[in-house]
């Protein structure tokens, strides 16, 4: 099954993202293990949601942390990012930095502090 492409992989054991010119590299990824990890983390996310956490920020950060771990697992192993060269990382880092920049730019609107919202709301205005 593996004769055509396996031939030039004799003595493998380490992947070299830049060096090889093999047309179709395939990587030994433990797909089922990653799938298991994703299912477990999904169950953890749901379980955390049923915990009685009152702090909004803790809830959001916890959910986003678990989601980020899951996203990293999908990107690194399912999308083979772990085996990609610098170019793909370069393409990916730009929108990720822009995402962080965008969310940071939203902070003045998120924070309800006097420094950012100096206008006193009218009495009776709910603000929602």
């Amino acid at each position: 099954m593996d004769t055509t492409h396996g031939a030039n992989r004799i003595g493998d054991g380490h992947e070299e993202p830049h060096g090889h010119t093999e047309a179709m590299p395939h990587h030994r990824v433990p797909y089922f293990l990653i799938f298991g990890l994703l299912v477990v983390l999904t169950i953890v996310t749901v379980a955390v949601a049923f915990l009685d956490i009152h702090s909004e920020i803790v809830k959001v950060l916890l959910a986003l942390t678990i989601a980020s771990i899951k996203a990293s697992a999908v990107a690194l192993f399912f999308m083979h990012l772990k085996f990609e060269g610098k170019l793909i990382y370069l393409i990916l880092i730009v929108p990720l930095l822009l995402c962080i920049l965008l969310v940071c730019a939203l902070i003045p609107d998120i924070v309800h502090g006097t420094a950012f919202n100096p206008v006193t709301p009218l009495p009776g205005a709910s603000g929602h």
Partner: protein
Amino acid sequence: MSETILDHGYVPEEHAPDPVIGHGDPTQPGKIGIWLFLASEIMFFIGILGTYIILRSGAPDMFAAHAHVLSKTAAGINTLVLIGSSLTVALAVDAAQKGNRTRTATMLGLTIVCAFGFLVVKYIEYSDKLGDPWGHSLGHQTLVHTQGKESFVYDGHVHPHGEGSIEVKGYRMPVPEQGINLHTISEHQIKETSGQKEEETWTLDLKGRGSYLRYGPQKNMFFACYYALTGVHGVHVIGGIIPMTILLIQTLRGKLLPFHVEYTGLYWHFVDLVWIFLFPLLYLI
């Protein structure tokens, strides 16, 4: 002076520097293309998510109260379905690169089945809120109904019940003196106020019905975000089914296209990735 190929005003293909190999990077141009597309997709989704962040930070309690209406079970099942389809498409790419046609076709087929499964669950969720196109269900509504001197605000699933009346299955409470805002009041709030434990069913005369509001995007900011994000994601799922079906047909006809399968796989993983973030943001917190 000797003649060079440049004197002819064109560079024959065999002499042109290879744009990829020339820079010492063996990444296939197609792969660079699909990653650039995914980069633009990230920006597309962060735009809508940014809107969600702003709106949620303005009314966190309202968002949390309304998230209770959404089915955690349905979304949880959908999460597992998408993760499963991510696994099958990864196995399809692996099989295609190894030249295994039968396995590629099987895995692509399973991925398409999962994608349709996701859409079916999504349809069940949407029709639960919006009603079905045949009018058997009028969806989830908040409505004010007056009978004699008593006014109640109902929140629940509405079905037509013969001529001139409707059946409401859900919760109700008396309309408070200061009145209510149908946009901000949630099922959760009515349940808490009335102390009602179980859903009840009432048959109401349409003549007494006051204002009413469906749990569509018009309900409030939370549902506008919910429909925008899940709707756009649903379109991406459909956008994944189309190329996967084409590739499945090609594979079954004996034409194995490993690079195309790989690029489609990358796109499909991205669709899964977006849902991994939408699930906790919309349903759980």
